[in-house]
Every structure is written in structure tokens, then in C-alpha cells.
């Protein structure tokens, strides 16, 4: 009787850990990524780069998540970087990470097991400076052997996230809408 109980427990444990494992197997983690901000106005072009975000993609349900350490954005000029971080702009001490949580909505058109480039539509929510907004993006997914690369380029309106300048140099030199480029590489397990 006791042995049956132990065997049953062991069996249930194994089944549970197997399902947990197979789910984890569909979720790919990447810490190799590049996010670029680009702002253009008649006064000047400003670009910032970040190479340290972490993201996951789930190839079976299409979930895409990324978390971006905001202080990792690097600007060509030190003063710009200070402005970007300070409490009037992105307040990175208070809000150190931006995040995106979304889903590939046309997952049926993406085959993660065959090499090729697929168009993807992603819908989700972007949280910057503690403000969450719905967002739709277009991107491409490139499958090459064991590696999957996601590319996306979209526009963000700064005022949507409570980032507004009314006067001074930032108001004239920073565009109201900035272009964001995302590249991430994932390895199939």
C-alpha cells in the first residue's frame, strides 16, 4: 500500500516536471539585443544605443517579453545622457526598467522550425516611466538553423508616456515622436 503511494507520488512528480520542462523548452531567453532610439529635428539628430536588455519569446504561444535597463542607453554626448536620465525626462532612478509584454498575433504564419524570414505582427503593452500604453508593432522573424532573430522598427510618441518639454533646448531639439529599432537573437535549445 505504502509502496503504491510512493510510486504514485513519484509518477505524478515526474509527469509534472516533464510538462513544466516542455513549457520552459518553448520559451527562449535572449540577453543579446540592441535597442536604438532615434530622434530627428531640424536642430539636430540624436541617437542612443542599449545592448543590455533581456527578452523572451515563446515559440508555441507567441508571447514576447522584454525588459530594458534604462540607464544602459548610451548617447554620443555626456550631457544628453544626463538629461535623458534625469527626473524631467525618463527618471531612470525611479523607473530603472522599461518593459514590453506582448504577443505575436499572426503566429500561424511563422514557422520556427523552418529557415526563412517571416513577417510578424505584435500587439501588447509598453511601460515606460511607469506609464503603460497599448502598442502594435510590425517586425520580422528570421530563422537560421538554431538561431532566431527578431527585428522591429516602430515609433513612440513621448507625450504618451508623460515625457513632455514645453520650453528650452530639449523642446526644440528632441522630436515629439522617436523611432525605436529592436534586434534580438535567441538560440533554440
Amino acid at each position, binding site marked *: 500500500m505504502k509502496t503504491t503511494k510512493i510510486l504514485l507520488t513519484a509518477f505524478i512528480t515526474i509527469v509534472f516536471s516533464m510538462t513544466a520542462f516542455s513549457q520552459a523548452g518553448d520559451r527562449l531567453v535572449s540577453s543579446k539585443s540592441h535597442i536604438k532610439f532615434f530622434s530627428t529635428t531640424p536642430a539636430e539628430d540624436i541617437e542612443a544605443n542599449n545592448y*543590455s536588455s533581456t527578452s523572451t519569446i515563446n515559440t508555441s504561444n507567441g508571447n514576447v517579453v522584454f525588459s530594458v535597463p534604462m540607464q*544602459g542607453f548610451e548617447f554620443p554626448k555626456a550631457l544628453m545622457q544626463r538629461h535623458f536620465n534625469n527626473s524631467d525626462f525618463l527618471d531612470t532612478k525611479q523607473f530603472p526598467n522599461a518593459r514590453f509584454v506582448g504577443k505575436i498575433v499572426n503566429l500561424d504564419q511563422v514557422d520556427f522550425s523552418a529557415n526563412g524570414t517571416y513577417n510578424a505582427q505584435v500587439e501588447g503593452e509598453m511601460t515606460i516611466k511607469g506609464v503603460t500604453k497599448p502598442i502594435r508593432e510590425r517586425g520580422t522573424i528570421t530563422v537560421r538553423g538554431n538561431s532566431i532573430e527578431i527585428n522591429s522598427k516602430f515609433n513612440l510618441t513621448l507625450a504618451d508616456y508623460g515625457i513632455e518639454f514645453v520650453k528650452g533646448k530639449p523642446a526644440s531639439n528632441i522630436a515629439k515622436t522617436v523611432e525605436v529599432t529592436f534586434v534580438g537573437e535567441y538560440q533554440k535549445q
Partner: protein
Amino acid sequence: MNRKKILKIVAILAVAGLLIGGGIGAYMFFMPHRDIQKSPTDFALTSSELVAEYLNDMEQANQKYLSADGESKILEITGTVAGITEDYNGQQVVLLKEPGQVAGVSCTFMQETNSNATALNIGQSVTIKGVIRSGVFYDPDLEMHLNAVLEKSDVVF
């Protein structure tokens, strides 16, 4: 005569003011980035200690380590090399993480210091200096703990 003298002084002051103002403006505009490796270290600790501090109280750790202008604390982290990878900018990334811990410290090197990262071996104990960009926390959407991020790193010999 007297009036001329006053005018002269005013002119000199105006020119000096312009030069100083312009100088400060130019300095601000061309201000170089902080040289992390040449700047003094603010805190020296082990990767486990930093991870534990963040897991214990993230708010408090952020108050301690992050600065509002983005020029956050410079740390020297001692830990075990758990991985060496390369980012999209061709920079080496060394993960310091103790076996069995949920998270570690990810240290991004620079073009100038890359060779010191590639010389490291997995399992080796090392001290790395860099600037902290973000801390350790559990992200419920990513379903994982995020590593702390150090950038502008180099090995401390």
C-alpha cells in the same frame, strides 16, 4: 576721460563674461563621458552580496546604487565566472554567478578591455569593476530573475 574709463571697464567685463559663459557652454556641450575605470570605486562586494541586497529590498538597493543623472555607482564585484558571451556591439559580456543562485551580475566590457574578458575561464574567481545600470529582480512576465547589469567593465588585477 572718466566716462571713457567706465566704458572701457564695462567692455572688458562684457568680453570676460562672454568668454566665461561661452567657455562653460562649450564645456557642457563637449563634456566627455565619465571614465569609469579611472574613477574611484564606490563599493566593493561579492556578486552574492549584491544579489542578496537586491532580493531583500529592491527600492533600498536602487536608492543606494542608482543616481538620478544616470551616473550611478562604480562597483568592484568579486564572483565566479559562469559565462562569457559577446553582445551586438562586439563587447564581451562576463556573467558572475554562484552555483545555485537565482541571479548574478552581468558585466559588459569595452573594445579596449575585451581581451581581459576573453582571457577568463568559466569557474574562475575574479574581481570586475564597472558602473551599475540596473539591479536584480524577479520579472513575473519574463518568469525569471534578471541579472544586475554592469557596463564599462574591466578585470581588476
